């Protein structure tokens, strides 16, 4: 589904990612973990097309999407759920969600998609007329996730979806992700909650200072001594 | 005070002293037009610096500087008209009266933030203009007031005197900006301009710093108005409160580099003479040419001239 071949990426002169190679099969759920500032977000942004890699290639379903602007990658089925609750603050909750169906192909499914999100987050339905900027932190996070799911992506890039969500909700989100995965949605998940992420995903990559330092099945990574002590605090 | 803060002040002072000798080198009697431009440059430096202290240092974009200039100009004109004060003596008072007006303006406008603040200053400036137009018995209304400057301390007012006075006033403005920039206050200004909520939560009395910036800025703008009154010898609401006094300092500051001490100076020194020369050589096309200059400048040097330099603290 997605293949990243030795990309370098960063912000202007600042190099962040170095020679990243990564592969995700169709229908897989893959986790990406690593310490703060390692470059996880940068990698997702590069895949989504918000940053153009200075080296290497990105293939989506065998065609190169490297250097493609975000609106084109999203048209090809990539949805990026940004970290830090980037909701359209002055628009209402429902308008935010409808932005998720901006792509022509998603417009016909507007009502079903809304239904799905409202079922997942009833709070959003209660507040559908509220201005998004006045939502609580967690509510904004729900909105950001919901908006991403409205896009019915083939590949979803989730940047810390559980950030700021109540434990109860984290579980239900994970359940939904699992279900959608079952329905064919490929997922790349960035999470600080390593244990949770690894229990959900079969495979994972560990990134540190812009480089992939480890990859493999989740169990292997969970067993790794290094990971254990740095990420699981055991 | 540390060495580092003294140095720029000394440099400023030396520059002023050196420039003050200019009339001995270039005779103002034969180069009146040149000195007229010098004078306009100096006054505009003062105005742009004033705007920059509020808009650049403290991040409070003002659209109301025409109001301050107008109030300053009218203070001088009316003291002269009603009480026969020498306009020169009334000059400091122009600053003070404008500052007092700023106390009222600030108490209203600073209830608002961002574009709302900016536009409320515009509205308040319009209100002061309308008062100047409407209060005929006091201001002569739209007819305007004539000011005859007369001699200053028995030196006849003319090229050299205008030049030196305006030069030192500009110097005074730059000094104010410099002192702020070198003090702790500049950090609080920055903080308030960047993110007022964060500043408040850290214990910074944002209102206080915004008011400080406003008061200094209005004082300097008021003096500018006073000088303009002396120079023009006539003031009416349309010239005292002309929107140009709002717009010009903004773009001059931006062309030079907003938030820096030198920015407004550079912008003014560069563009004002160009504008003056255009106006007298191309009476009908000067705005067109000036417009092109502005567009080209902004398009290719968006950060302002000071932005071209790495170290742009001052």
């Amino acid at each position, binding site marked *: 589904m997605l293949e990243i071949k030795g990309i370098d990426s960063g912000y202007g002169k600042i190099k962040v990612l170095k020679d990243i190679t990564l592969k995700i099969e169709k229908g897989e759920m893959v986790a990406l973990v690593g*310490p703060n500032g390692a470059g996880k977000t940068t990698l997702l942004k590069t895949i989504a097309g918000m940053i153009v890699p200075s080296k290497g290639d990105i293939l989506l379903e065998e065609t190169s999407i490297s250097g493609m602007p975000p609106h084109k990658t999203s048209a090809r089925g990539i949805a990026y759920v940004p970290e830090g609750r980037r909701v359209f603050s002055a628009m209402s909750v429902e308008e935010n969600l409808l932005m998720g169906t901006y792509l022509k192909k998603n417009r016909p499914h507007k009502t079903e998609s809304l239904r799905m999100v409202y079922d997942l987050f009833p709070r959003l339905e209660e507040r559908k007329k509220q201005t998004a900027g006045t939502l609580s*932190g967690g509510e904004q996070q729900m909105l950001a996730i919901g908006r991403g799911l409205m896009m019915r992506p083939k590949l979803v890039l989730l940047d*810390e979806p559980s950030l700021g969500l109540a434990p109860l909700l984290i579980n239900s989100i994970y359940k939904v992700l699992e279900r959608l995965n079952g329905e064919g949605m490929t997922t790349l998940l960035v999470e600080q909650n390593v244990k949770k992420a690894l229990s959900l995903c079969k495979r994972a990559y560990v990134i540190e200072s812009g480089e992939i330092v480890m990859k493999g099945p989740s169990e292997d990574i969970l067993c790794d001594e290094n990971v254990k002590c740095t990420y699981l605090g055991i | 005070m540390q060495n580092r803060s003294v140095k720029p002040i000394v440099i400023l002072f030396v520059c002023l002293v050196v420039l003050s000798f200019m009339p001995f080198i270039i005779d103002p009697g034969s180069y009146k037009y040149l000195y007229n431009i010098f004078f306009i440059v100096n006054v505009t430096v003062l105005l742009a610096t004033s705007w920059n202290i509020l808009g650049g240092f403290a991040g409070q974009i003002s659209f109301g500087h025409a109001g301050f200039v107008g109030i300053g100009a009218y203070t001088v004109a009316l003291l002269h008209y009603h009480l026969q004060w020498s306009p020169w003596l009334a000059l400091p008072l122009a600053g003070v009266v404008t500052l007092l007006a700023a106390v009222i303006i600030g108490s209203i406008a600073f209830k608002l933030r961002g574009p709302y603040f900016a536009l409320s200053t515009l509205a308040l400036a319009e209100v002061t203009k309308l008062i100047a137009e409407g209060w005929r018995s006091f201001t002569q209304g739209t007819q305007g007031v004539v000011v005859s400057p007369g001699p200053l301390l028995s030196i006849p007012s003319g090229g050299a005197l205008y030049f030196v006075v305006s030069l030192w006033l500009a110097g005074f403005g730059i000094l104010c900006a410099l002192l702020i920039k070198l003090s702790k206050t500049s950090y609080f200004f920055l903080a308030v301009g960047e993110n007022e909520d964060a*500043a408040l939560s*850290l214990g*910074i009395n944002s209102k206080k710093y915004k008011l400080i910036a406003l008061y200094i800025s209005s004082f300097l703008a008021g003096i500018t108005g006073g000088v303009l009154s002396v120079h023009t010898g006539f003031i009416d609401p349309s010239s005292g409160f002309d929107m140009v006094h709002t717009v010009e300092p903004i773009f001059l500051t931006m062309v030079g580099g907003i938030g820096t001490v030198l920015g407004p100076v550079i912008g003014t020194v560069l563009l004002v003479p160009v504008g003056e020369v255009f106006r007298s050589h191309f009476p009908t096309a000067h705005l067109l040419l000036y417009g092109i200059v502005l567009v080209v400048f902004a398009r290719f040097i968006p950060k302002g001239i000071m932005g071209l330099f790495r170290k742009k603290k001052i």
Partner: protein
Amino acid sequence: MNILEIKDLTKAFGGVVAVSDLNLSIREGIIFGVVGPNGAGKTTLINVITGVEKITKGSIFFKGSDIGKLPTFKRSLEGITRTFQIPQCFTGLTVFENILIPLLLRLPKQEAQLEAARIAERMFLKDDLNKQAQMLSVGRLKLLELAKAYATSPRLLLVDEPMGGVSLDMMDSLINLIKSLRDEGITILLVEHVMKVVVALADELVVLNFGKQIALGAPQEVMKRKEVIEAYLGDEYA
């Protein structure tokens, strides 16, 4: 001694009652945890305590005096400082300047600079000192939030989700850091969704739901209650 007392506090936004008839007392020198489902009113509580939002009804006492009408910055000068759930930095300034600014309120410039460097080191921001705040990753911004707030030398520190987005390796260090802040005598009100952190830190825990208190007590004990599990934690914690 209670450093903070909240009496019958209500905060409503139009029809939405974010905090409803809340009574709380926070002892000096403890870490007071506040948890609850999303939208329970935790951030609103902090906003009201710091004066960012006006009280609809009720009163707040800090060290015995009513502060309900003081402006935000005065409360901060009195010793109440908060961090923001969605980081609020001076984005155009460097990390160093961000920390320096609150220090300048109390210290001469040179001392402030030294102190800022010390704080940055303590808050794990040494490497980012000269980066513009807008260039920081989300996890690092959280540290900067904390560093800025700490720089005001608060008596009562209200931290809103300090761990959201912080990686696990950093989390332990942060837990220790917050503990050490408490040991310095700073009272801390901690809003957090990461239960591991809450358990490790909170001396006392309140659970809010729909702006109302649904449980109060020692964390271990509170977390076992049925209503807390139902409303907030989920079966996993049962």
